[in-house]
């Protein structure tokens, strides 16, 4: 597991998504962590020091694992670029199929309630076909 800088992590994550388009999955795990061992934590508790927690983000494609840690200050920026990466690569998900079908059904029903619109559209269509 390599601990990377947030920017580097995102570019590695991008290439992970690109490599796994034909087969394979990508896992991204988020966990709250102080990045310190148990003993160290106990020491800090004894001394009454405040422990700084970060968000540990790990990613894996089954072969390679990368990780980064995001602090309170960085997280808004990281979150935004992370969302951009996800948006850019999650395009295999289905787009509102059911709603489209419903829309089609609504369109069939619509003429009964709003006949004017239908006339307009039909006249446009016919004029379009003529020209």
């Amino acid at each position, binding site marked *: 597991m390599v601990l990377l800088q947030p920017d580097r992590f995102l570019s590695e994550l991008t290439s992970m998504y690109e490599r796994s388009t034909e087969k394979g999955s990508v896992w991204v*795990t988020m966990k709250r962590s102080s990045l310190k061992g148990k003993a160290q934590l106990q020491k800090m508790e004894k001394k009454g020091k405040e422990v700084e927690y*970060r968000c540990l983000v790990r990613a894996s494609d089954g072969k390679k694992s990368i990780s980064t840690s995001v602090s309170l200050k960085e997280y808004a920026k990281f*979150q935004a670029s992370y969302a951009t990466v996800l948006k850019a690569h999650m395009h295999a*998900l289905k787009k509102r199929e059911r709603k489209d079908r419903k829309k089609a059904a609504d369109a069939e029903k619509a003429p009964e309630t709003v006949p004017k619109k239908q006339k307009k559209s039909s006249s446009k269509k016919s004029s379009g076909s003529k020209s």
Partner: protein
Amino acid sequence: MVYVDSWDEFVERSVQLFRADPSATRYVMKYRHCEGKLVLKVTDDRECLKFKTDQAQDAKKMEKLNNIVFALMTRGPDADISEVSGKEPAEQQQSKKGRGRRQ
């Protein structure tokens, strides 16, 4: 382990799980491009919550959950997530309406 069907329930229970044990709870997002599947998992190794989807609109909801999780994990379990989760109330309402129509 069972898949949670309702998105709102999944979010609510995930937040509860995290708040109960912040340092042991993790959030995993698995995306499989070739099958177009997205699986979200929140677990503390005792209880496991999962949500599976193949719909693009759920990716938007997931983005919001990412926001919530980031906020909780960096700011701590007591962080106020209402501003993160309720940032776009108009959009939330729309998605609710949409769900109603489709059912």
